[in-house]
């Protein structure tokens, strides 16, 4: 017959196993947390590793400043500038579309709409973000390409403007939801204080609420920009993909993302062209990383501001 374990003995045993379990769980959670950083670092290293040959043989400066992109001629010419400019043109047009619409919509939702309208609008905007980019591309092909061609009397409707407009529309949900968060974070007391000084809703919005939320709205724009510059499918369908230096936004452009997607299937693995495409990816990665970093720093500053 065994004596039952003493009360204190049992508690001790349970504590030990629990401690072990806690250590395991903690290790798993730590690992998951670090995973994001590990993956990000791995991507950076992977891109650098694969673009090593391109930097070595074609030269980093030659690639970044070259205006001729003839990757399949012999010897191949890998001037990325038309691609970078193409991306910037498309993204610039996207910003012109998404910033005014997105910020205005956020102001309406946060400051002027009733509770029901607000809820409905927010779910519709979430849905807008969930539509696959290829569907936006299809609508662009069917509607926007002929429209741009006629509206600006162009030879072809496949231009930077066309891609930019669709990208802008695609970025609107990002801009709205983050701007709306920023406006929502402005303490109600500030609005009341402004109203109590004899200001209308509009005056309060323009003079107090928007300035107070400005850094958050800036971050929203930056994140929208990050989304626009990294988007691939819609621009591939809409911009015409001519890899030449565009003279204006009404010409066909090819973006960095479009180039990688279009050419990756035809290159020899490990070849120079293959490596150059990785270099393009590295440039893109650096740009989006920078944009997101700035947006994050600005958001963090805003958060600190209201924590008092």
């Amino acid at each position: 017959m065994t004596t039952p374990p003493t009360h204190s003995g049992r508690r001790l045993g349970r504590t030990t196993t629990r401690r072990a379990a806690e250590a395991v769980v903690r290790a798993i959670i730590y690992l998951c947390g670090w995973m994001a950083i590990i993956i990000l670092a791995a991507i950076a290293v992977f891109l650098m590793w694969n673009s090593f040959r391109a930097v070595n043989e074609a030269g980093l400066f030659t690639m970044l400043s070259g205006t001729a992109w003839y990757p399949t001629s012999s010897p191949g010419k890998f001037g990325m500038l038309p691609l970078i400019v193409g991306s910037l043109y498309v993204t610039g047009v996207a910003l012109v579309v998404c910033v005014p619409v997105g910020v205005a919509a956020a102001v309406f939702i946060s400051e002027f709409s009733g509770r029901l309208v607000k809820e409905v609008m927010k779910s519709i905007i979430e849905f807008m973000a969930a539509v696959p980019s290829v569907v936006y591309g299809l609508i662009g092909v069917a509607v926007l390409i002929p429209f741009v061609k006629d509206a600006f009397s162009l030879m072809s409707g496949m231009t930077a403007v066309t891609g930019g407009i669709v990208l802008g529309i695609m970025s609107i949900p990002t801009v709205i939801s983050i701007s709306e968060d920023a406006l929502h974070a402005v303490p109600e007391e500030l609005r009341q204080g402004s109203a109590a000084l004899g200001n209308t809703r509009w005056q309060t919005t323009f003079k107090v609420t928007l300035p107070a939320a400005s850094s958050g709205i800036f971050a929203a724009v930056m994140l929208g920009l990050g989304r626009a510059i990294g988007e691939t499918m819609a621009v591939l369908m809409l911009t015409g993909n001519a890899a030449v230096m565009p003279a204006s936004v009404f010409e066909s452009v090819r973006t960095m993302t479009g180039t990688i997607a279009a050419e990756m299937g035809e290159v020899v693995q490990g070849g120079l062209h293959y490596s150059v495409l990785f270099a393009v990816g590295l440039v893109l990665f650096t740009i989006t990383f920078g944009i997101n970093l700035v947006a994050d720093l600005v958001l963090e500053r805003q958060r600190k501001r209201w924590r008092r």
Partner: protein
Amino acid sequence: MVSPLLVTGDGTLSYGAGSVTLPRADAREGAASKAADLQGSFSLADVSVAYGRDRVIEGVSMYIPPRAVTALIGPSGCGKSTLLRCLNRMNDELGNVHVGGTITLDGADIMGRAMDPVELRMRVGQVFQRPNPFPMTIWDNVAYGPRTQGIRKRSELDELVEESLKGAALWAEVKNNLKKHAFELSGGQQQRLCIARALATKPEVILMDEPASALDPISTQQIEDTIAQLKDSVTIVIVTHNMQQAARISDQTAFMLRESLDEPAHLVEMDETRKMFTNPDDARTESYITGRFG
């Protein structure tokens, strides 16, 4: 002239003519005309407030004299702040609030369509419980209201800023740092900045909703001094939980009470502060003041 005596529907008022303390003319420099003396007086007749279907205040009638401090006291949830917000129609901002009865400011109905709430709020300023300076410089905070009124001239604004900061007893502390961000001030300084901001629009009345409850004793003292200094030039209506504060700073005190959650709050008694705190007419006032409930 606005009569201090109110005849109302079913709201009964029991205070004599002596309870209305008009400021003595000799207390002010360059005393203006008799009519100007009466600027900033409120008359409330049978005022009721409902949040949706919940009636929170009913049958409040009172006269708030000009250029004096009127304190609203009572236990939590007795509708003091709600009543205060009726006076500059800030309840409009909340939505789903219905205010009944009549409120007049210097004889003009403030609840009708004829009164623009935005205009009313330029005449009736408010200081909130928690200091709420705008995220901008001290100067910009004070110039905010005047700018809304359309004043653009820098020299005029500078003058108003100085005058208002002096009125709020903050000038000496910040005169060399007007470009400093308002958030760098201490809590007490921020609250006095909010008072200065309210003064800048030259209001006839300033409403204060527990202006010192978030502050330390020294800052509270400074706010009370500021109030004492201001009452010669502006009507002050203050909500406070602090009975000593009401006794120290106010000329008149109104005691409100919500006897149970099923019935709306009402005005129990309103009188000269000295009388309210020494010899109130109503037994409930006495038990509240002596700390037996609330």
